[in-house]
């Protein structure tokens, strides 16, 4: 459901900077369903990749083979991401706070002696800074939804309204956070992530219990439509072809 909900966020014809894992699955599902002209940009330099199966990594050969253009890594960051040419950035998170700031670097302890060392920043800080908007996909629980992230790897709305402008970040920041429980969107005034939609069968109390801060809930809370048969079929087709190639991409 999380993947389907994320895929639905992607409008046809836009350009989307995709990380591997859930973002790549969702973006490819979108392309296989309602957004055939979605332009997938991978940080490996593949512009307009059209894989017919899910790549395991952001550098699989299928991405280069099917891309409109394969450019160097400096070019993808300097000529394509940095000037704001990419509409949507798709990010995961190990921790997320109420302003959509993301941590993928270290958890616990301090930076030099962390409890858990995570992979780090990769392309995320500049994706978060420069894409027209950001879609975050993350499982919602007390480990991930924290009052304060242990390390700011990628900036959401910083400490609140006006911070992105003060920092000179030119992209719009997180527009939506998709979790396994529902959908959160930033409040237009406070920038605080607000629960606006629940997946079928999930309750507000469940979402609150999975959030490490006092979760704001929209007055008009909606429930998402369950995956359609078409979405599920295409999803299964994508992951099936992938399994033949090693392992699922999620």
């Amino acid at each position, binding site marked *: 459901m999380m993947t389907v909900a994320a895929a639905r966020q992607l409008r046809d014809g836009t350009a989307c900077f995709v990380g*591997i*894992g859930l973002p790549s699955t969702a973006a490819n599902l979108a392309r296989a369903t309602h957004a055939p002209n979605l332009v997938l940009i991978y*940080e*490996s*330099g*593949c512009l307009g990749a059209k894989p017919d199966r899910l*790549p*395991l*990594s*952001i*550098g*699989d*050969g299928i*991405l*280069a083979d099917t891309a409109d253009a*394969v450019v*160097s*890594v*400096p070019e993808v*960051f*300097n000529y394509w*991401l*940095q000037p704001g040419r990419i509409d949507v950035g798709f990010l995961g998170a190990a921790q997320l706070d109420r302003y959509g700031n993301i941590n993928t*670097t270290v958890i616990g302890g301090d*930076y030099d*002696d*962390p*409890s*858990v*060392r*995570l*992979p*780090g*920043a*990769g*392309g*995320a*800080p*500049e994706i978060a*800074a*420069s894409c027209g908007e950001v879609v975050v996909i993350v499982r919602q629980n007390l480990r991930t939804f924290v009052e304060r992230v242990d*390390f*700011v*790897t*990628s*900036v959401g709305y*910083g400490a609140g309204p006006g*911070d992105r402008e003060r*920092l*000179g*970040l*030119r992209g719009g920041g997180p527009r939506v956070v998709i979790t396994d429980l529902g959908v959160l969107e930033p409040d237009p005034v406070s920038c605080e992530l607000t629960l606006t939609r629940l997946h079928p069968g999930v309750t507000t109390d469940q979402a609150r219990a999975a959030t490490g801060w006092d979760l704001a809930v929209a007055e008009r809370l909606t429930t998402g439509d369950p995956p359609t048969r078409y979405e599920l079929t295409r999803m299964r087709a994508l992951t099936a072809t992938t399994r033949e*190639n*090693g*392992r699922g*991409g999620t």
Partner: protein
Amino acid sequence: MAKLVALSDGVADLVHDGDVVALEGFTHLIPFAAGHEIIRQGRRDLTLVRMTPDVIYDQLIGAGCARRLIFSWGGNPGVGSLHRFRDAVQNSWPGPLELEEHSHAGMANRYVAGASGLPFAVLRGYTGTDLPRHTANIRTITCPFTAETLTAVPALRPDVTVVHAQRADRAGNVQMWGITGVQKEAVLAARRSLVTVEEIVDELDPVPGQVVLPGWAVTAVAEAPGGSHPSYAQGYSVRDNAFYVGWDAISRDRDAFRDWIERHVLKVEVQA
């Protein structure tokens, strides 16, 4: 003109204890064979540089070759964490590992500055993140025309860069295609370079999407067929995704790791 050498000679000549070494490759064309030769030759105190330290750096770190890592994303692509890297950072095993951490955009531009003979590069990056708190190598710079504040990072100048490519000719001209990442910049930024190739041929037939490094800009070329496995060389092999998945279990356990290195790296017969 690049010298054509045996891989073992190339590593012996060009990679020294204490060097700043970049083994680049963005998922594709990762120089595993050269990395294994560095382990076999017992190099120590290396500063390893790389945007995406993955399994080969996990192996170098676990084997005790590295003292320091300059990087932007240290994971097993599509699988998860690097357990030898984690063990070094969290538990100093087999020794402590100093980190200098960047974003991809920052690292890519550091190589660009190195390749360009400039002392620094300018980008829009890092702003608002906690990364600049932990290194002096991320600073601000003011545009002399607009007075806007931007980010500056210093050039990377590895002592030696090692990359893998599909082909070279006998003059040492190197040809690679597919995802070519930051390899050209990493080679041009370095004082010395070693390129392993799938094969050495008489003529480099042009290929769409190719990057050609002229032989006079490369120090040495060594033939190493399959030298990027479990990564891949487009047109020669496919990515061994099962290996990457399997590495997770091997690398979680120190003994399993040591055993793997013993059997698959140290005891391998190498051509002279």
